[in-house]
């Protein structure tokens, strides 16, 4: 548990240093995610392990524990709503409507573009080797 947590924190730390040093718009934890993924894939290649076996490692167990309660981690920031409600004031209804329309529209556009491109590729015989 502790070595796995340390590995996650070190990846995030390198990510934060990297993104700040280069002034990238990418957040540190996202760089850390990429770093850990590349590291885990290389580790699997070198040791001849299956990448799908990662969930049985100490890292896998810790990651699953964190991701299993991901929602909890948003509660502290979310409770801030209590403090911010007066800020939204008379525009509350307009903002609510805009968020609702945008949320539904974004879900629809994203899911249909994903499925459409996937089907278009599947139909292209030149790309059969990829599947």
């Amino acid at each position, binding site marked *: 548990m502790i070595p796995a947590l340390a590995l996650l924190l070190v990846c995030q730390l390198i990510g934060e240093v990297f993104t700040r040093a280069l002034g990238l718009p990418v957040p*540190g934890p996202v760089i850390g995610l990429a770093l850990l993924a590349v590291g885990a894939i290389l580790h699997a290649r070198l040791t001849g392990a299956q990448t799908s076996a990662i969930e049985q490692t100490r890292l896998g167990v810790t990651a699953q524990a964190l991701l299993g309660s991901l929602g909890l981690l948003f509660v*502290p920031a979310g409770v801030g709503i209590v403090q*911010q409600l007066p800020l939204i004031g008379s525009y509350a209804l307009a903002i609510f409507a805009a968020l609702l329309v945008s*949320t539904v529209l974004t879900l629809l556009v994203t899911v249909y573009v994903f499925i459409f491109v996937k089907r278009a590729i599947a139909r292209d015989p030149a790309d059969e080797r990829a599947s």
Partner: protein
Amino acid sequence: MTNPFSIWVYLSATPLLWLALTLLAWIAADAISRACGRHPLANPVLIAIAAMGAVLVATGTPYKTYFEGAQFVHFLLGPATVAIAVPLVRHLALVRANILPMLAALLAGAVTAVVSVVAVAAALGVPREILVSLAPKSVTAGIAMAISENLGGRPALTAVLVIATGVMGAVIVTPLMNALRIRDYAARGFAVGLTSHGIGTARAFAVDEIAGTFAGIAMGLNGVATALLVPLLLRWL
């Protein structure tokens, strides 16, 4: 015996009380969600926020005092984001096979998320300062607040709008996708992660591990895409 009020005065100022209450609120909210068969409306994030918010209002506790305890939970958002590497590596073959659909959906979704919210809010008379705070609402709080601040929005307001978008997407996604008979869990997960960042990703993991994995990837990619897009798109306002 010590006066119970003096115990409260002591406890209400310690991180211990608010950290313990946040965890208890989550356990209760998660139990309610499970008892409702993970019904989308019984969203555990929403229930826990409502419960904690009610406690703060009822006891007159400032948010700052609450956050001193709750920050230990908040801090784990960073390592949890890094941890998404694990399901990503586990489903590597599936992720590789879907690179092109993901990139196309990312571009279309990121533009839709920003343009649609700004267009509807502007049409309803919302002032420009709030529009800037609204624009990055689909990306995870840390990035969204930075984008908002850089462009003259209000980061604190953006954080609230980000959470609201997260909860909305997490509540809507399952009934919407089921009604449309979309059974591709990679596509469903990618859509909710792009739209509703970590809260959508949490919902996706509760429904299906593949959906959760693609939601996590979409959350990361959209954070980057929106950071690049919002400054460009707001020039046309």
